[in-house]
């Protein structure tokens, strides 16, 4: 078992990969009461076209990853997971995103039994025509629930306009039409392809003994063979840097208008090849430009340009996208100011150093919380394939020269904007 100190954080990452490719990552803490256990597959809603090891190409309906997440809680025999976890007061949950599906339990007791159960129930699929049909109704209701919340609808809408080909343009839950088409065979095919040891990992954080946890992982996982020895080949969409739709105006059931704005860039153009380092610089740029201490925010506040703003960076294959969602009563002026800020980026050495200090402090603070540490490390594994164990040193290594080089490659050549207005009949 590898033991890697998390530099500057008084914590250690334990790591082991079994022969079948299954990896387990552990961050134990002696002084905590609680723990989280995550068992995840690197399979999410983005994966809908792939070639299996028998060379058979598959295109599946959308929404299968999320459908599987729902169905894993149903067991042929043995205990229902909610009932099992309920007995020890443990919380059980699951989530599907574009690139992963994860099963989580968090609690304070029964660490070993719970971990064994987690691995077992996710390793035991049980799909029948009947239980698939029942779930279709439940999932349709869930999708309807999100349709009632404008922010969720717009998150999908903006991606539809950004991406021409990549399935990132589709809602994680899939479309209602597709959900109705899903069969138990589809579920088994995808399960057998992606819920295999070489495509999965476990992440444990909190109060437990790493040796004991590893022993359980070995007992439950070592004898599991990969149904496909080679990992399936996921389709490369060769997503172009041009956006799908540059401008659009939509009306929705809202009171305050919204602007969605996205900047689409090609990652290959950036001078930094390291994905993590590039992300740090990109985040630094938007933190300085649009964070709580930014001049943009100050101006927008004073001019009454907006009432809420959210931005995020997203990476899909070789495409890097910056997405804004803003509530504004003055959408035209707001967009003008936003574009102005993005086309003349200036970041001082002081700005950079201040944010480096902020980020380092946040890393130290985060390690106090089992949940926050879990989220942080999980996101590293999904984004960079491995946990980042020396983030503080990487932050310290950031410098103005590199930053300036990256700034030069941010341009507004490919952007998508959506203006969202309240529906006429609502006024």
């Amino acid at each position: 078992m590898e033991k890697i100190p998390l530099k500057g954080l008084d914590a250690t990452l334990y790591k082991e990969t079994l022969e079948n490719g299954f990896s387990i990552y552990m961050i134990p803490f002696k002084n905590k009461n609680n723990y989280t256990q995550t068992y995840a597959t690197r399979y999410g809603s983005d994966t809908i076209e792939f070639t299996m090891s028998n060379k058979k190409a598959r295109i599946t309906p959308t929404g299968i990853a999320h459908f599987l997440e729902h169905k894993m809680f149903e067991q042929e025999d043995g205990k229902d997971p909610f009932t099992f976890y309920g007995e020890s007061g443990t919380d059980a949950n699951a989530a599907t995103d574009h690139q992963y599906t994860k099963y989580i339990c968090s609690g304070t007791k029964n660490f070993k039994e719970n971990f064994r159960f987690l691995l077992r129930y996710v390793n035991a699929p049980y799909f029948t025509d009947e239980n698939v049909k029942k779930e279709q109704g439940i999932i349709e209701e869930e999708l309807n629930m999100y349709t009632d919340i404008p922010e969720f609808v717009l998150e999908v809408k903006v991606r539809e306009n950004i991406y021409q080909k990549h399935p990132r343009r589709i809602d994680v839950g899939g479309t209602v039409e597709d959900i109705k088409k899903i069969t138990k065979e589809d579920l088994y095919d995808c399960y057998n392809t992606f819920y295999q040891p070489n495509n999965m990992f476990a992440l444990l954080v909190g109060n437990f003994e790493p040796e004991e946890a590893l022993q359980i992982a070995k007992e439950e996982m070592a004898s599991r063979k990969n149904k496909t020895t080679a990992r399936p080949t996921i389709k490369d969409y060769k997503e172009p840097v041009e956006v799908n739709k540059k401008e659009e105006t939509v009306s929705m059931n809202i009171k305050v208008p919204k602007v969605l704005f996205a900047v689409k860039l090609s990652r290959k153009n950036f001078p930094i090849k390291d994905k993590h380092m590039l992300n740090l610089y990109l985040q630094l740029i938007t933190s300085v430009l649009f964070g709580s201490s930014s001049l943009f925010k100050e101006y927008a506040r004073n001019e009454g340009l907006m009432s809420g703003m959210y931005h995020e960076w997203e990476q899909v294959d070789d495409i890097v996208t910056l997405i804004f969602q803003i509530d504004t009563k003055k959408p035209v002026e707001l967009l003008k100011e936003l574009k102005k800020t993005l086309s003349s980026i200036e970041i001082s050495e002081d700005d950079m150093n201040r944010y480096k200090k902020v980020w380092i402090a946040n890393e130290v603070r985060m390690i106090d919380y089992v949940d926050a540490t879990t989220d942080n490390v999980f996101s590293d594994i999904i984004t960079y394939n491995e946990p980042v164990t020396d983030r503080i040193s990487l932050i310290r290594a950031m410098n103005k020269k590199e930053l300036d080089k990256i700034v030069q490659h941010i341009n507004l050549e490919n952007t998508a904007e959506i203006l969202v207005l309240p529906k006429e009949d609502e006024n």
Partner: protein
Amino acid sequence: MKYIKKDLGSYNLHIIKTDKFKSVTVQVSFRAAIVKEEITMRNVLSDLLLLSCKKYPTKREVALKSQDLYASQVMVEDLRLGNYLNTNFYLNTLNDKYTEEGNLEEGIKFLSELINHPNVENNCFNSEALEIIKRQAQASLERVKEDPANYSLIRLLENMDRNSPLSYRPMGYIEDLEKIDASNLYVYYKNMLKTNMMDIFILGDVDESEAERIIVEAFQSNTYKKIRKPYRLEDKKPHAKPVVIKEMEKHLLQAKMSIGCRAYDLTESERNYALTLYSIILGMGGDSKLFQNIREEYSAAYYINATPNKLDNILIIRAGITKENFKKVVRLVEGELQAMRKGKFTEEDIKKAKELFQTSMEELEEHPSRIINAYYMMEILGADDINTRRKKMNAVTSEEIISVAKKVKIDTIYCLEGE
């Protein structure tokens, strides 16, 4: 964990010493009997105080200062606690050990600047700053319907008892917002400092006397305040027959149902203990009666849960449903409440509910603000301490849960649905 409480005359200082965290958390709480027309004003005031102050006159300067203090976080939260309106200001900053000597003191001074030395001239708040906050408040008040589940809850409470604080909207009202100006808000602020009950908490690996010195220097107040009103809302009987209210929200696909139950005539021990276990068994989590029977068995709701509110003597059941299923869900919920009254739950169910409670107590100890909240409730409600709560909860019997079940009755059923 070591707890020390000091009565400093105009406020209590609570020092909770623990080496569990790398950061130090400070909470400054103000509370007073709630007045409906003041809710909006209080929300505006809280946001305004954190926007700027005399020393840091713009939000940007406030943000720069907090970043400079090793990403100190300053937050504020207004909430109703029964008959009271309560405001908590928080500061979270890394311990000096991980930053530099004096960081904590600087952080507390910073919090004090924001609360005690606002951006005021000629007995008026800075009007530009106020405009910024009012604009933001206006936008968020206008958006209240955009979260249909929450809107359904608001409308339920408004319909349960129009005259009680239960019906007050926590985010306030547009018509009250219009009445706020730089001068009347300042009067309100001065009054808050003068008349509100105040408590200050500091939690972390701190030296007690040093912590006291810093707090006392930063927060000087010499008014004497006395409590007048009980915290808990008046105990009210449910309607003899549940009142049903349906409202339309044109484009809504999934109907949002909120069922308000009165938990009437509970004893102190039932309210603090058996009611909690009752609620867990009935409707908290994936293993609860409501979830298992109504969602899993009948697929009649996408989500369904129950939450008690001890201070308001109520229990709220919330569900997302297909509107055609409304009657069916009402019937099923009635059935589950009735089954609880008849004691149709097992010793195993009770054991699991107790385990869940114990876990939540253990997890509470991992979160500074939740630890502080536990001490705050001990202070104002005379709640039992964490260890006593754990012991007493374990002693609850099925008879006590049945006794609670008999006192929980549906009062009002509200449903927000599409066309």
